[in-house]
């Protein structure tokens, strides 16, 4: 039996992806399940949910079961301006999940690139994100956006933090009809600018040139320049056809200040892969560095791979109490040497489905009648 054949689809994909990341020079990062709770307290704006499982260690320190891996990597990185670091990880994180009605253990496969990064580095991460989706499903799409575009626009219009949060919620939900109501009272030009920007969505080059028309601040143009340079590199590698530029993709977290993206595959109703540029987080840890990465929620693969194997074992041998055990084991060894999964029992265990059932008696092996 080929060892790889034994693996479930999702296990196999995980291994393929690890090989892909290794090929691009990423090293596996292994970490403890626990982290100082203080880390999350100080950086709570980075996390989607403030709910964290905590406990006291023997020395009284408050520890947490990791709700996130990126924070720990960003805190511990040895990267510098002249020496970048590339990691990938396969870790379980613990998060409150509205759908599960409580905490859930989520298996995450992710990748981080930290250092002084150029467009090529962003392109590399985008490329790997694309290949990650492709390994999971042939029909996949990547949604791209840039937080720098929004931050520059809203700063330019002097939108305060409270209103900004409300606007982001409306933009994320493409609730343009409600956004229009919320903006009523603003100067008509500003209102139109935000509404037009929120509606920017579609094929990359068309949407980019529509966005150019709205870029009245330098930061907006800079963001679009960056998107364009990454796009040109992706185009050269023919990865561009699965891209959508969509400025309704916005991040809650104040640490995502640049490029952000989400990956979808057909058959999974929500984003499977999320990622982006989080240099602001590194700056918060006192390092003037860039960082970009993404993570895949492997639990979501269960939407795709639901099929149950047709049988649990290939052969079930039911033997009599007084059967010749030596001969039985010899028979079983022969079958196993042929690569079959064999189970020996005196009576058929409940719920175990076998392709073939044999009876082993003094007379030897005899196939049981079907539907017996």
């Amino acid at each position, binding site marked *: 039996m080929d060892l790889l054949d034994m693996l479930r689809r999702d296990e196999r994909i995980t291994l393929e992806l690890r090989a892909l990341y290794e090929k691009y020079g990423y090293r596996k990062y292994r970490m403890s399940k626990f982290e100082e709770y203080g880390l999350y307290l100080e950086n709570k704006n980075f996390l989607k949910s403030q709910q964290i499982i905590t406990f006291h260690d023997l020395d009284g320190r408050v520890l947490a079961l990791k709700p996130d891996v990126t924070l720990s990597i960003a805190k511990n990185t040895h990267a510098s301006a002249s020496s970048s670091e590339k990691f990938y990880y396969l870790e379980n994180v613990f998060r409150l999940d509205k759908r599960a009605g409580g905490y859930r253990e989520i298996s995450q496969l992710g990748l981080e690139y930290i250092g002084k990064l150029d467009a090529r580095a962003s392109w590399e991460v985008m490329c790997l994100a694309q290949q990650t989706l492709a390994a999971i499903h042939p*029909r996949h*799409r990547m949604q791209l956006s840039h937080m720098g575009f929004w931050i520059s626009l809203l700063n330019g219009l002097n939108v305060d933090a409270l209103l900004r949060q409300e606007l982001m919620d409306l933009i994320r*939900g493409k*609730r343009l009809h409600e956004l229009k109501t919320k903006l009523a009272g603003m100067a008509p030009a500003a209102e139109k600018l935000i509404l037009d920007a929120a509606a920017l969505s579609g094929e990359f080059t068309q949407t980019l040139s529509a966005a150019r028309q709205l870029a009245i601040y330098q930061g907006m143009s800079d963001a679009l320049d960056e998107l364009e340079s990454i796009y040109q590199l992706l185009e050269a590698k023919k990865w561009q056809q699965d891209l*959508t530029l969509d400025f*309704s993709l916005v991040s809650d977290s104040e640490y995502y200040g640049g490029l952000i993206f989400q990956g*979808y595959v057909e058959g999974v*109703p*929500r984003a499977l892969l999320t990622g982006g540029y989080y240099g602001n987080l590194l700056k918060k840890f006192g390092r003037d560095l860039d960082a970009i990465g993404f993570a895949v929620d492997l639990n979501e693969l269960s939407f795709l791979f639901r099929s149950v194997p047709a049988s649990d074992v290939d052969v079930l041998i039911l033997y009599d109490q007084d059967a010749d055990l030596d001969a039985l084991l010899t028979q079983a060894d022969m079958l196993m040497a042929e690569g079959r999964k064999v189970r020996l029992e005196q009576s058929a265990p409940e719920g175990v489905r076998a392709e073939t059932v044999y009876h082993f008696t003094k007379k030897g092996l005899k196939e049981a009648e079907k539907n017996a």
Partner: protein
Amino acid sequence: MLNIALPKGRLGDQVLNLFSSIGFQCAEIYENDRRLVLESPDHQLRYLLVKPSDVAIYVEYGAADVGVVGKDILLEGNPDVYELLDLQIGKCRLAVAGKEDYTENPEAVLRVATKFPNVAKKYYSSLNRDIEIIQLNGSIELAPILGLSDVIVDIVESGKTLRENHLKVLSEIVPVSARLIANRASYLFKNEIITDMTRKLQEAVE
């Protein structure tokens, strides 16, 4: 094939008429038939008629690509979907109502009976008011009459039911109407038909 989740009942009928008026037909079959799944003659569309409060769940989980649902359901469930359009039909409001002679005691915890606990909690927390939620699934109007609650938070259309039960609207929380929603993944994979549908619906309701 585009799957469209619609609420069963009067709003669903209105929406089917609206959809067929812009070329997404199915109305004829609907009038002769009470099945829960209906296909358009060209098999490009499939309408799923589900319980109104379940529409958003069908869409969030991708069992339907798009759906039409009241804003009240969206506010209560807060599903992770795109809300593409206000269809301007099924208009009503979420409101606080109480007995005609009701006066609030500001020193007591307010007991609120409702089908919309999240909406009620959010509304009263914005007023800094302590409340106790009494979650009911129907005949909400009975609660203040029987003294089960001080007030109710519920959908009010014409106000007729309230008047018949000697209740009145005390304050309005938010206006409600039917919204077109879309699953996030479907919006990417079936973008052409969904944006086309949204544009046509927008022209029709304006």
